[in-house]
C-alpha cells in the first residue's frame, strides 16, 4: 500500500441530470506504483475520462463523488479547492485530447509554459524560461527558443501536443495523466509522440495513467491495463496477461474487432459487439455488459463479481469461456464473398490530372494532379495523413467543389463541375457519406424525412406508400428497425447515425459512393460493424466505393485497390495486396510501421517521420515527401518530381529509388 503513488478505492461518481441520476464511475478501485504506467481502455462513455478528471477534480458541478483517491497516502477528495492547487499541474499533471483547445491561441508558447513554472514553483521569469526551454528540448522539439516565441496556430497539431506534454512535465510531476493525447493526430505523429513518452518515463521516472480507446496504443505505453465498461472495471492486470489471456468478453471483443494484422474482407468478417453503450442509472446493479454480451448464460446474474484469474489479474467474468474451444479468440465468422468479378475493361470513374487550389490571394494547393480510375463494383481506398488532399478529392468527385484543373469523367461523361450544374441523374449516381454523422444529418429532421428526401428529389417515386415501404426495406438493410422512423439524430448513437447516413446514400441506388472517413468518428466496436455493413452492402448493391481513410488497416480491410496520397500527389497505387507488400514506397512503409500493433510480441520498429508536411501554400517542386523521407536518394529528390515506376500492370509508385528491373 505504501509503495503506491496512487490508490483509488471504491470510487463512485454520479451525475445528476435532467434524465435522472446516472452513474459514470461505479465502484472502481485500482492502484498505481511508483514509476509504473497503467493504461485505461474503453469506448466512449465508459467513464475513463471522468475517472481521470476526478483525480484532478475537474468534474462539473452536478457530479457527486464517493470513495477514496489516495495520492501518496493523502486522500485528494478531502482537500479543499485551495489545497488542490498545489497538486494540479505541479505534482499531478494532465494532458488533454485536443492540443489546440488546451493552448491559449493569443499567448506565445513560451509565455504559457513560463506561467506554469512561475505559478507553481515561484521561479523568476528568467529561471522559468530556462525550465521551459529544457522541457521543450526534452520533448525533442527542434529550435526550442524559436518555438517559444511562436503562437499555437503557427505550429502543427503534433508539435502542439508535444508542447502540451512539455508543459505537463515542466514542474516534474510524479504522476502524469494523458487523456487520449494522440487520438486527434495522424498515425505517424502518434508514433513519434508515443516514443517520446517512453523516453520521458525513462528520464523522469514518473508514473503514468494513459487513457485510450485503442488497444494498440495502450500496448505501446502501458505495463498494466484496466479495461472499463460503462463505469466499471471489467478486467485489470499486467499487460501481457490481458493481451495473452483476455478473460472478459468485452476485452476480447475490443482486441478482436479492429481490422489489424493484415485482416482483409475476403477472409474475415470483423467481430463486433452488438448494441450500444447504455447510460446506467445510479441504482442499477449487476453486470453492465450483459445486454451486449454474446456469451451470456444463466449464471451471469448470480455469479456476478470480480474474480481472480491469476495473481495480479482480475476480471468481472470468467464463466463465459469455460466451455469454449481454446482458439475461440481467433474464431471469425465467414465473410460474404464477391460473386461477380470486377470488370476490368471499363472504368466507372476516371480522374485526369485533377487539381484543386483553394483561395485566390493566399493559395492553398490541396490536390496537385491526380490520375486514377475506379472500376465498376470495386472499392478504391485512398489513404494518407490529414491535409494530403484525400477528402478534397472525394468532395470534388461528389460535386461539393469544382476542380481547378483537370477532368472528372464518370461513366463516359465529363462531370468536372460543381453540384449546381450537375444533372439529377449524376447527383443520384454519386453519393457521399460524411465523416461525422452527427453533423451530416439534419438534427431537426426525423430519420424518415432524412431518408425520404433524396428519393423525393432524385427518384421518380410519387406513391407515398411505396416510398415508405422502400424506406423500411433500406432501414432493414442497415440493421435498423421500424421504430427508428420517427427518431431524430440526437436520439441515436454514433453508430446508428452513421447507419442512417448510409441508408440515405443507398436509398436511391447510386453507382458510386464516396465514403469520407465514415468510421473514424466511431468507437472501434461500432467501426467494425459499420465496416461489415459497408462491405456487405457493396457486394449486395454492386456500387463502387471511393473509400477515404487515414487508417491503413481499415483501407486494407475493405479495398480492392489502394491509392496512397501525400501532399496532394499520388505516392503509390495498386491492387491492395500489391500495395501492402514490398516493394513499398517509403511513405507507405512509414505509414505501415506507425500502425500500433495489438500483439505485444509483434512490435515493429517505427520509422519516425520528422519534420512536417510541405507548406501547402507553395507550389510543390520535386518529390513532396523528400523532406521527411528516410530513404532519400539524393539531391534529385528535392529537385525533380519522381518518375512513375511500374512494378506491375496495376501497381506503380512515384519514387526516385531504382529497383532492379525484373
Amino acid at each position: 500500500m505504501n509503495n503506491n503513488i496512487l490508490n483509488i478505492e471504491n470510487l463512485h461518481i454520479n451525475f445528476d441530470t435532467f434524465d435522472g441520476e446516472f452513474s459514470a464511475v461505479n465502484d472502481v478501485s485500482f492502484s498505481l506504483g511508483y514509476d509504473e504506467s497503467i493504461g485505461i481502455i474503453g469506448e466512449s462513455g465508459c467513464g475513463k475520462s471522468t475517472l481521470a478528471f476526478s483525480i484532478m477534480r475537474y468534474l462539473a458541478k452536478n457530479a457527486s463523488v464517493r470513495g477514496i483517491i489516495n495520492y501518496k497516502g493523502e486522500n485528494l477528495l478531502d482537500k479543499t479547492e485551495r489545497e488542490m492547487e498545489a497538486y494540479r499541474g505541479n505534482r499531478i499533471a494532465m494532458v488533454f485530447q485536443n492540443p489546440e483547445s488546451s493552448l491559449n491561441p493569443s499567448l506565445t508558447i513560451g509565455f504559457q509554459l513560463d506561467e506554469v513554472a512561475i505559478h507553481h514553483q515561484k521561479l523568476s521569469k528568467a529561471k522559468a524560461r530556462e525550465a521551459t526551454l529544457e522541457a521543450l528540448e526534452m520533448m525533442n522539439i527542434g529550435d526550442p527558443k524559436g518555438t517559444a516565441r511562436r503562437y499555437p496556430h503557427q505550429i502543427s497539431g503534433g508539435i502542439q501536443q508535444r508542447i502540451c506534454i512539455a508543459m505537463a512535465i515542466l514542474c516534474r510531476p510524479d504522476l502524469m495523466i494523458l487523456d487520449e493525447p494522440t487520438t486527434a493526430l495522424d498515425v505517424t505523429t502518434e508514433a513519434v509522440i508515443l516514443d517520446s513518452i517512453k523516453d520521458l518515463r525513462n528520464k523522469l521516472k514518473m508514473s503514468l495513467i494513459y487513457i485510450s480507446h485503442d488497444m494498440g496504443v495502450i500496448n505501446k505505453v502501458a505495463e498494466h491495463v484496466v479495461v472499463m465498461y460503462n463505469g466499471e472495471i471489467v478486467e485489470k492486470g499486467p499487460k501481457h496477461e490481458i493481451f495473452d489471456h483476455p478473460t472478459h468478453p468485452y476485452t476480447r471483443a475490443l482486441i478482436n474487432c479492429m481490422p489489424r494484422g493484415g485482416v482483409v474482407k475476403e477472409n474475415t468478417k470483423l467481430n463486433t459487439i452488438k448494441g450500444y453503450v447504455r447510460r446506467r442509472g445510479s441504482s442499477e446493479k449487476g453486470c453492465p455488459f450483459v445486454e451486449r454480451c454474446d456469451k451470456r448464460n444463466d449464471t451471469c446474474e448470480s455469479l456476478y463479481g470480480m474474480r481472480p484469474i491469476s495473481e495480479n489479474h482480475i476480471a468481472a467474468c470468467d464463466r463465459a469461456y469455460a466451455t469454449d474451444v481454446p482458439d475461440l479468440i481467433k474464431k471469425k465468422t465467414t465473410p460474404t464473398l464477391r460473386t461477380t468479378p470486377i470488370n476490368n475493361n471499363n472504368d466507372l470513374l476516371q480522374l485526369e490530372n485533377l487539381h484543386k487550389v483553394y483561395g485566390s490571394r493566399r493559395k492553398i494547393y490541396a490536390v496537385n494532379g491526380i490520375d486514377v480510375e475506379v472500376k465498376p463494383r470495386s472499392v478504391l481506398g485512398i489513404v494518407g495523413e490529414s491535409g494530403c488532399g484525400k477528402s478534397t478529392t472525394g468532395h470534388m468527385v461528389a460535386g461539393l467543389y469544382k476542380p481547378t484543373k483537370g477532368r472528372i469523367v464518370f461513366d463516359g461523361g465529363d462531370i468536372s463541375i460543381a453540384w449546381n450544374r450537375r444533372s439529377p441523374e449524376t447527383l443520384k449516381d454519386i453519393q457521399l457519406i460524411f465523416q461525422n454523422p452527427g453533423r451530416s444529418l439534419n438534427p431537426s429532421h426525423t430519420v424518415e424525412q432524412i431518408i425520404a428526401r433524396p428519393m423525393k428529389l432524385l427518384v421518380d417515386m410519387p406513391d407515398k406508400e411505396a416510398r415508405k415501404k422502400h424506406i423500411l426495406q433500406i432501414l432493414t438493410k442497415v440493421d435498423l428497425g421500424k421504430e427508428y422512423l420517427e427518431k431524430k439524430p440526437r436520439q441515436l448513437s454514433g453508430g446508428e447515425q452513421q447507419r442512417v447516413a448510409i441508408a440515405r446514400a443507398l436509398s436511391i441506388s447510386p453507382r458510386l459512393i464516396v465514403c469520407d472517413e465514415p468510421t473514424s468518428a466511431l468507437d472501434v466496436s461500432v467501426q467494425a460493424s459499420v465496416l461489415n455493413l459497408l462491405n456487405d452492402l457493396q457486394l449486395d448493391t454492386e456500387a463502387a466505393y471511393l473509400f477515404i481513410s487515414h487508417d491503413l488497416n481499415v483501407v486494407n480491410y475493405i479495398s480492392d485497390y489502394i491509392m496512397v496520397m501525400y501532399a496532394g500527389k499520388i505516392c503509390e497505387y495498386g491492387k491492395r495486396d500489391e500495395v501492402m507488400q514490398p516493394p513499398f514506397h517509403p511513405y507507405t512503409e512509414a505509414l505501415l510501421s506507425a500502425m500500433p500493433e495489438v500483439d505485444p510480441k509483434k512490435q515493429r520498429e517505427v520509422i519516425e517521420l520528422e519534420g512536417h508536411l510541405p507548406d501547402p501554400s507553395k507550389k510543390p517542386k520535386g518529390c513532396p515527401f523528400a523532406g521527411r523521407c528516410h530513404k532519400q536518394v539524393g539531391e534529385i529528390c528535392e529537385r525533380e518530381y519522381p518518375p512513375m515506376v511500374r512494378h506491375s500492370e496495376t501497381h506503380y509508385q512515384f519514387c526516385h529509388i531504382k529497383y532492379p528491373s525484373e
Partner: protein
Amino acid sequence: MKYFLYQLKKHPLAIFGIAIIIFWLLAALFGPSLMQFTHTQIDSDFQMARPGEEGHLLGTDSLGRDILSRIIYGSRSILTVALLTSILSTIVGIILGFMAGYFGGKIDAVFLRGMDILMAIPPLVLSMVVLGILGNSTILSLTLIVSIAFIPATARVSRGVLLTEKSQEYVSAARIRGEHHLYIMFVEILPNTTGPIIVEATARFAYSIMMVASLGFLGVGLQPPTPDWGMMVIENKPIITQAPWAVLFPALAIASLVIAISIFSDFVSKVLIHEQ
C-alpha cells in the same frame, strides 16, 4: 415542456419574471373591463387624488383621470406594439440575414454596408425623426418604424447563426442532392437556428417596450387620448411635487415589464443555448 419545468426549478428568478409577464398579459386582456373607471373618464372633483382615495387605487392625475385604469389600458397598446415589433423585425431580419449569409459575396457586402448605414443612426433618433415627420402616430406606424430600426440587429444575429450552420455537413449533403437554395435556407437550416433567434426576439421585445415608452415620453408616441406609459410620465411631470404617484406608477410599470422580459430572455437563452 418537462425539460422547461426542470430548468425553471433551477432558476427561481425566471419564475418571478414570467409571473410579471403573465400579470401584464392578463391585465391587457381582461384588465380594462374590470376597472371601476374608464381611462378617459375625468373625475373633476378628485384631481390629483392620493392613491386609495375614493376608489382610485393608484390615485388620479391633474385632470382627475384614474392612474390605474390608464396604466392597465396603456398596457394594451404597448404590448401590442412591442409584440408586433419583435415578431416583424425578427421575420424580416431572418429573411435578410439568411439571404446575405447564404449567398455571401456581393450580396453580403451590400447587405452589410446597408445595415452599417442603418445602424449608424441611433434607433431612437431614427424613429423620432420619422414619426415626427409623419405626425399622428398610430399603432401601425409605430410598429413599422420601430421594426425598421431594429432590423439591423436581428438581421445580423440571423446572418451569424446561419454562417455557423452553413458549414455543417448536412448543408453540404443537401446541396449535392440538388436542393433548392430556399429549401436549404428555410427547411434545412432555419429549424436549427431557432435557439439564438428566439433569444434575440425576446430581447427585442424588451427593447421595443423601452423604445415605445421613450417615444411616448418624447411626445411622438401614440396620440391622446390613447394612454401611453411614456406619455403619462411626461404629462404628469409638471405635477411631480404635488402628485408623485402620477409619474411613479407609469414609470414602475415600464420598469417592471422591461426587467421581467429581460429576466425571461436570459432564462430562455440559458435553456435554449447554453445548456443543450
